[in-house]
């Protein structure tokens, strides 16, 4: 069972997405009379797309299962498209994502300038161990240049934090 779930995980997610869309559409239509029927209904397209997603998801499951049953390794699609002959570094991926989410989360508190400096510092270290002063100088310079470019050149005010910058 676990193997089947793993093999078809993406197809099941697609089917589930279709079902969720259908559920939301029916929930919405139950609240509003004007949405219910007709070929010019605003929910016609979402409904069609939901059905299409369910259909395509099912079709993918069947095709893949058939390929597995036929032991047709050539036609069973590779799941990982990212393998570029290099070992994947999942730990670094998760740390990178965490840094990015933290960056966006702390912008309202620290402001864009400080948050971007800290993020860049973290990411420079994540990619390569460099001397601390080089990382600091690089991150600070780049943050200031980006800040300056947006504020002065593009006339777009980037978020300011509790420290007023």
């Amino acid at each position, binding site marked *: 069972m676990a193997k089947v779930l793993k093999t078809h*995980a*993406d197809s099941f997610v697609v089917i589930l*997405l279709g079902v969720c*869309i259908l559920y939301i559409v029916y929930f919405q239509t139950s609240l*509003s009379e*004007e*949405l219910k029927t*007709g*070929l*010019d209904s*605003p*929910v016609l*397209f*979402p409904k069609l*797309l*939901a059905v*299409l*997603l369910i259909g*395509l*998801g099912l079709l*993918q499951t069947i095709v893949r299962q058939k390929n597995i049953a036929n032991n047709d390794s050539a036609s069973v*699609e*590779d*799941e990982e*498209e*990212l393998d*570029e002959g*290099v070992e994947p*570094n*999942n730990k*670094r*991926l998760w740390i*990178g*994502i965490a840094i*990015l*989410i933290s*960056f*966006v989360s702390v*912008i309202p508190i620290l402001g864009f300038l400080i948050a*971007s400096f800290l*993020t*860049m510092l973290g*990411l*420079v270290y*994540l*990619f*390569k161990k460099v001397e601390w002063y080089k990382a600091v100088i*690089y*991150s600070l310079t780049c*943050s200031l240049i*980006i800040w300056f*470019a*947006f504020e002065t*050149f*593009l*006339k*777009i*005010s*980037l*978020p300011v934090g509790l420290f007023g910058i």
Partner: protein
Amino acid sequence: MDNYIEAFQTLADPYIILLMIIGVLAGLIIGSLPGLTDPMALGLAIPFTFGMEPLAGILLLLAIHFGAIYGGSMTAILINTPGTPAGAAAALDGFPLTKKGHSKKALQMSALSALFAALVSVSALMLISPILAKVALKFGPAEYFALGIFGLSIVAGVAGKSLLKALIAATIGIFVSTIGADPLFGVERFTFGSYYLYEGIDLVTALIGLFALTEIFKRFQYPQQIDLNKINGNLNNKNKGLNRTEIKKSLKTMSKGSVIGVLVGALPGTGAVISSFLSYGEEVRSSEHPEKYGKGELNGVAAAESGAIGTESAAFIPLLTFGIPGDVATAILLGAFTLHGIKIGPDLFNGSSNLLLMIFMGILLLEIFVFLAGWYGSSLVTKIVKVPNAYLFPVITVLVVAGSFALMTSLFNVWVTLFFGFLGFVMIKFGYPLPPLLLGIILGPIIEHNYLLAISSTGGNIFEVISSPIALSILILAIIMMFLSFRMNKNIKRAIKK
């Protein structure tokens, strides 16, 4: 004639010239760096064009686009690492030439073929687009609905390994486009009461997430850096350049490649990769000495490069006349046009024909800048590719966040970008191609809006909508195109593998 003089005067403005040069150089650098793609560069650059006049903004983006495509070929020739997929064919003979010590010849041939093909392609764009635009003016909602479906046939061309996965991605894309108020009645759909979602998902926000952020996540997981040992001593450009005989010998190849490029580029869903390999294949097939190819034949570089670059301007034919993007880059540029208040479609040829003329002439000028950068800029590219990821990607990450914030001056938009970044990354992980998703987001509103208009005007008769002769022809053409481009794509991939 007055229009041409006015367009020339506008383009001769030092500010515009400077922007184009900056754009070409930026594109060249980005295109030459493996991991940094043309769509990513365009997505990142769009927020920078906000404060600019529409012409300046569009020309900057076009400069980046053209520069990036050419940059991909430069690294393919120099270090056998194509910066963009379209550059792969140029590496077949370009890199063996570099190994033989003829990198300068290869680069100059590549620059010359690119210029030749670009001139042919721009001429085709200038000649064909106005004619097609006149035809498009006769189109009603039913025909535009059919055209939207035709645009979806691109999906087959950018499907990757599985057409089924591409179709799923496109369906998700169309679904994303339905978020927000519906196009006719303004009824809220999937907004969950959020004020931010009422206007729908912003196209540029989605594409920054899909193409820029996804690439960053990929680099987090798969560190990739150019092997500096690959950059050998032949790159100092002290070796001999092209001579007249070599240029003369390659003229026929360039002409053939350019025509192939234009024909392929004008078809939605094809693009530079297919065209460069088709052109290269045709050159090998028609040569008296096919055995020389792949071992350092100058005509091989000419064929690949003219085939790839010939598609560039031709891809604008369906975009400018019908508002249907021919590939991912033109899809992104469509978003940029909209952002600058330029309504793409046949009306563009009536209302703002001067702007269009300036864009056409600007493209010509850009191609000359690309040629000059290619002829003289190889040493710059070899230096740039040595920049470590550790310095490059942190800056890009911050730029992504700043850029997506700038689009709506809202942090909500940044979260939407992050969402699309994750979505794109997960989709790639499971082998789902991203271009169909983007095409779905772009074409969804065109299809839905025109369908609703058409169905309202026919009193709800769906058969009347699809049985108009033009609409029906377009729909049949869409099915044929879908099969054709899927098969062509598969054949090319097989050829690349070989």
